[in-house]
């Protein structure tokens, strides 16, 4: 099997994950895009491990470590998502602009900020 087959699969999954993170509005769906990107990285690691016949199995071990880090990340991220839901009543990442850069602090919801008008 040519090495570039799994590498190409990984790049496609990574691109799809990037699209998911950028285009989705629900925070849980954004997290699914992150999971897709992490999986693409794992495919790369395992493919290089098999191609170079690594005696230390660095690729597979690092893939396992990535899975563990992804599990830790998803646990923390879902705790944050639930906290956001409790305080805001929604998890729409487009409407979460509490930390947005504003000119005047007394404006609670900048109307024109979406279209770039100040």
């Amino acid at each position, binding site marked *: *099997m*040519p*090495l*570039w*087959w*799994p*590498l*190409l*699969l*990984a*790049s496609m*999954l*990574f*691109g*799809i*994950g*990037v*699209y*998911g993170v*950028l*285009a*989705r509005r*629900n925070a*849980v*769906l954004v*997290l*699914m*895009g992150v*999971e*897709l990107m992490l*999986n693409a990285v*794992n*495919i790369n690691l*395992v493919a290089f*491990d*098999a*191609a170079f*016949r690594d005696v*230390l*199995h660095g690729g*597979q*071990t690092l*893939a*396992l470590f990535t*899975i*563990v880090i992804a*599990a*830790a990340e*998803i*646990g*923390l991220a*879902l*705790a*944050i*998502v*639930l*906290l956001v839901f*409790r305080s805001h009543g929604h*998890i729409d990442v*487009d409407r979460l602009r509490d930390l947005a850069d504003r000119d005047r602090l007394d404006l609670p919801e900048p109307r024109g900020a979406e279209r770039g008008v100040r």
Partner: protein
Amino acid sequence: MSWVEAIFLLLSGIAVVSALLVVTTSHLVHAALWLVVTLGSVAGVFLVLAAEFVAWVQVLIYVGAVVVLLLFALMLTRAPTGPQPDLTVRRAVPAAVVGLLVAVLLGVTVVAGFQDVRIDLDRVVVGSAEVTGETIFRRWVLPFEVLSVLLLAALVGAIVLSRLRDREDG
């Protein structure tokens, strides 16, 4: 083309199509279920690439735990079960262009860089539980321990975050 290569192509086709459905479907719960299909076929790809233990860990942790966590989060945030047209931002086209650009750039780079390297799957040492356990606990013990501290920190962080409201009330 050998049967291993055919299985690999089939699994990667399933993975790509279901990943596209994950990021485009208008049902929230369907996205999580398509993610199961994607992660399962990626586990199959790991099996083809002789990473046996990684494949089963993928099934256990991703398909078993992560997707269940995602479904719980969808339920706890009162996700509607019907189709939702506004799940994607209005400017989805630039996002699609960026995603396509990333995929094409990475794909062209890896194809140009590793065009003539082949994976000899007959001579690869299969990463069984025995082999993986020996390598982790002989060569990679220190990163493993650091990782367990990271997991503990994530656990403590998740508990602190989920108890934040109780402390404010009381």
